[in-house]
């Protein structure tokens, strides 16, 4: 159900989910992220510009991803957060725990 576009350029992956991320599809996103991390890429950018809404099941998936990424030395960056998505990160005080860039370009440069 959840469309996820993934681009791999020289060991750096940009993943762009499309649509609301809630309990009905957060496991799907989890699957995509886990498969991407398995290859131990240099970096994984999760581009949220096409995600108008996310609930805490989506956030949990990203926290898990961050923990796996840290352990294996993959740089995990979130970017393109829309207002509603930014809001949940702020309420959960995770906006300072994640590396958050404005867009994919900034994420690559960060």
């Amino acid at each position, binding site marked *: 159900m959840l469309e996820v576009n993934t681009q791999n350029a020289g060991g750096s992956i940009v993943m762009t989910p499309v649509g609301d991320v809630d309990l*009905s599809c957060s496991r799907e996103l989890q699957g995509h992220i886990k498969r991407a991390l398995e290859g131990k890429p240099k970096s994984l950018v999760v581009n949220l510009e096409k995600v108008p809404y996310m609930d805490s099941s989506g956030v949990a998936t990203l926290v898990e991803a961050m923990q796996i990424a840290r352990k294996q030395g993959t740089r995990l960056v979130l970017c393109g957060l829309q207002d509603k998505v930014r809001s949940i990160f702020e309420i959960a005080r995770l906006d300072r725990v994640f590396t958050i860039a404005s867009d994919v370009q900034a994420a690559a440069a960060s």
Partner: protein
Amino acid sequence: MEPRHVSSQAERASSPASTVPIPEPTGPAPVRVEMLSQPRFLSGARDLVSAVSKRCGFDDAACGQMALAVDEALCNVIRHGYDRRPDGKIWISLWPIEESGKEPTGIKIVIEDEARQVEPEKIKSRDLDDIRPGGLGVHIIQQIMSRSYFEKREKVGMRLVMLKMHNNR
């Protein structure tokens, strides 16, 4: 089984209480959703809550947050209350908070189920500094709402009462 009224509160556990009493509407809700405990219906519930909140005078950001709080509460009923069983019933009741003839000053949202009963005081999120996947839903609800509390329903299931005022008191 079907909740028609929100009755007087026994076994209530309040979230950090505001000092000013909020006028809680009673009687049947003017809008009520009955849904099965399936994640695919979350988006419908969210969008209804957001639109009704808008008509209660909240701005778009607040409407989005209220939709999030309801989504979190429904997720918890689905996961913890019904253990992801797809055939449990959930009721969402909405009341504009208003004096008759005046514009609404807030909204009351009640979520009820027929699922496992737990002690209200045991329902809480992880410490925010103890970063791990999950454990955020109840914190999000409390942050967004002016006031919220869980209680056991009379025979089966739980009830979550959420109040949000324009001035957030």
